[in-house]
């Protein structure tokens, strides 16, 4: 499978750094922004800087939750654009369903001044794939989600585990057993949302160069070898009894209570840990995700979002100014990185001196350098307009396989591929 554009090469291609955004006191109006969790807080943190340039635009950020943003956005588009904000947050994985079913719901950003196509070189190419249909650009790239392991230094060392020696998933399982032993089984080594989500499967599959669909969005590939290995590993982790099962909220409760020693997520989870457990400062660190086999890929991507402007917005110009300030300037992106750990995809921002600084919360580790360093190794994966349907089927398949209802991972994924193919009308790739 094709590799992403190597980050270094992309940097070299970007001749000019991000343009300075020109302020304009004549631009007036009020705009509303929909987003979720720390993403909403990060956008809010950008309002003061934005208002220095555009003092007469009033920005209101509403945190309505991730699922609700998606659901209400689709409902709004289905209703012909009613009840939508001026700026809409959208996950790259889920973006294509909007463009496919409601091509008129969002503003083509090439029709605004300056056209989005003039900003193309300021972001890595892969971030635009799901946001572009033909010549139209429906959203501006925001953050990306390079996957890493966030771990508790104190718990690891108490159990005598050195994270530098964890290179494969087998090493990770061995470490998990040591941690369980050292803590009387009180501390688990991870949280897997088996039955409610398939994030771990997606991260591991992506690492192995496999995903629900191929990158042309023309066939189902979920039963290919990389995905089989990923699903086997998820079951191995659960069977070993070293992970707890829980969703988003349970995971936050667990790391706050110190009952979980590692969180694997997209790097945007950094802000979630830091803002939920400020008292654990200095106790955390970061290492690369283990590979499926020695010497294998130790990088993946989970999540990553974009901002779109609904066609029903009455203040498109002001909305576009805000989007360009928050996502298109180093200042805007670094503000979000500093306060909430959102990993910029704006190339100029990845070279900001802040990225190279040691982070006190993370035991003075230079985590951003390390995290951004993995971006070049992330295999490409595409959500397509059928992402949610495939995901629902995979969540069930994973739970059934873990519960022992299939003889092996290949059989489980063959059944999933069959169902996804039936649900989407796409053929299963040979």
């Amino acid at each position, binding site marked *: 499978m094709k590799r992403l554009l190597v980050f270094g090469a992309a940097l070299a291609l970007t001749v000019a750094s991000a343009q300075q955004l020109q302020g304009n006191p004549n631009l007036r109006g009020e705009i509303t922004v929909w987003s979720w969790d720390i993403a909403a807080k990060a956008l809010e943190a950008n309002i003061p800087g934005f208002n220095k340039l555009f003092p007469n635009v009033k920005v209101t950020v509403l945190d309505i939750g991730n699922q609700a943003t998606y*659901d209400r956005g689709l409902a709004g588009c*289905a209703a012909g654009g009613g009840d939508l904000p001026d700026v809409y947050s959208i996950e790259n994985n889920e973006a294509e*369903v909007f463009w496919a*079913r409601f091509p008129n719901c969002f503003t083509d950003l090439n029709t605004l001044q300056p056209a989005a196509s003039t900003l193309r070189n300021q972001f890595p190419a892969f971030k635009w794939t799901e946001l572009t249909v033909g010549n139209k650009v429906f959203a501006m790239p925001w953050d990306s989600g390079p996957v890493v392991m966030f771990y508790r230094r104190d718990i690891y060392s108490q159990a005598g585990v050195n994270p530098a020696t964890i290179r494969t998933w087998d090493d990770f399982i061995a470490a998990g057993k040591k941690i369980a032993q050292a803590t009387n089984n009180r501390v688990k080594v991870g949280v897997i949302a*088996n*039955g409610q989500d398939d994030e771990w499967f997606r991260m591991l599959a992506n690492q192995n160069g496999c995903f629900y669909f191929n990158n042309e969005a023309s066939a189902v590939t979920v039963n290919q070898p990389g995905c089989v290995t990923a699903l086997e590993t998820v079951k191995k982790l659960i069977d070993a009894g070293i992970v707890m*099962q829980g969703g988003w909220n349970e995971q936050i409760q667990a790391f706050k209570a110190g009952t979980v020693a590692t969180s694997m997520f997209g790097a945007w989870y950094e802000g979630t840990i830091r803002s939920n457990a400020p008292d654990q400062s200095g106790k955390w660190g970061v290492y690369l995700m283990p590979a499926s086999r020695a010497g294998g890929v130790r990088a993946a991507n989970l999540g990553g979002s974009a901002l779109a402007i609904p066609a029903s917005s009455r203040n498109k110009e002001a909305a576009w100014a805000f989007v360009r300030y928050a996502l298109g300037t180093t200042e805007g992106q670094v503000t979000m990185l500093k306060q909430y750990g959102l990993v910029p995809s704006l190339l100029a921002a990845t070279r900001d001196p802040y990225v190279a600084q040691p982070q006190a919360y993370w035991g003075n580790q230079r985590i951003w350098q390390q995290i951004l360093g993995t971006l070049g190794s992330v295999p490409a994966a595409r959500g397509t307009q*059928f992402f949610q349907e495939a995901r629902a089927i995979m969540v069930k398949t994973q739970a*059934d396989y873990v519960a022992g209802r299939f003889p092996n991972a290949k059989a489980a994924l063959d059944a999933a591929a069959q169902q996804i193919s*039936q649900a989407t009308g796409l053929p299963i790739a040979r």
Partner: protein
Amino acid sequence: MKRSATPYLFLSPYLAIFALFWAWPILESLLLSFQNTRVSPPVWNLSVNWGRILGDAAFWDALRNTVLILVIQVPLMLALATVLAVALNSQLLRARGFFRFAFFAPVVVGAVAYSAVFRLLFNQNGAVNAALGTQLNWIFDPVGAMAVIIITLTWRWTGYNAIIILAGLQSIPKDIYEAAEIDGASPWQQFWRITVPSLRPVLLFCLVLSIIGTLQLFTEPWLITNGGPGTATTTLGVYLYRQGFQNINFGYASTIAYAITLLALVFSIIQLRLFGRES
């Protein structure tokens, strides 16, 4: 104006609203069920949705879960409600007004609010585990999650049904019981020979309402378990919502809606066959 037109004139506002907000959506969704709505604009395709539904494992899972709730939760709840109604009707009970209100109160609470509370209660670190001294992972276990849904529904609707049954109890003439007592019938015999048969139409009414409610069940599984783990608590209502508003496949969602309607029809016929003749 002709005199015969007058009633229609009075009815016309209702008829207009009925046509706009009831008849048209019902017809529109029937038409949608024969269209592929995953392309823009939708195209006619008579088999795309109806051809899919019978082979769709997720639909069968949802149907199985809904039927499971029907055969476990509904009888359990109606039995509890009957016992509760008899107790509330007892002359021995003090502060009857208070108890009647207390058992009816859950219906007044917003579904979203109490769903959130139940999710917290059954959390792995929640109050239920603390009280039982267990570490059960209710929400993440297929059987546990279904148990939570059934407990929640029973908590909310038992009192409501009990109040309806109570009204039925009070309409049973007292002299029947007096006559039975003179004939030497025990309270147990009175309950089975007089109370239950007299309540038959009321119980049938509660049963019909509960079955319709279960077929439409959405809020509790959506908010407490999100239909999971896997599809363990996905009801037909949840599956319809997922297809309609998460996958934006209105055509297939309409097909599911019509499938639910057909099921309701089948259940109604069965009920009439079983209970309808005598009452």
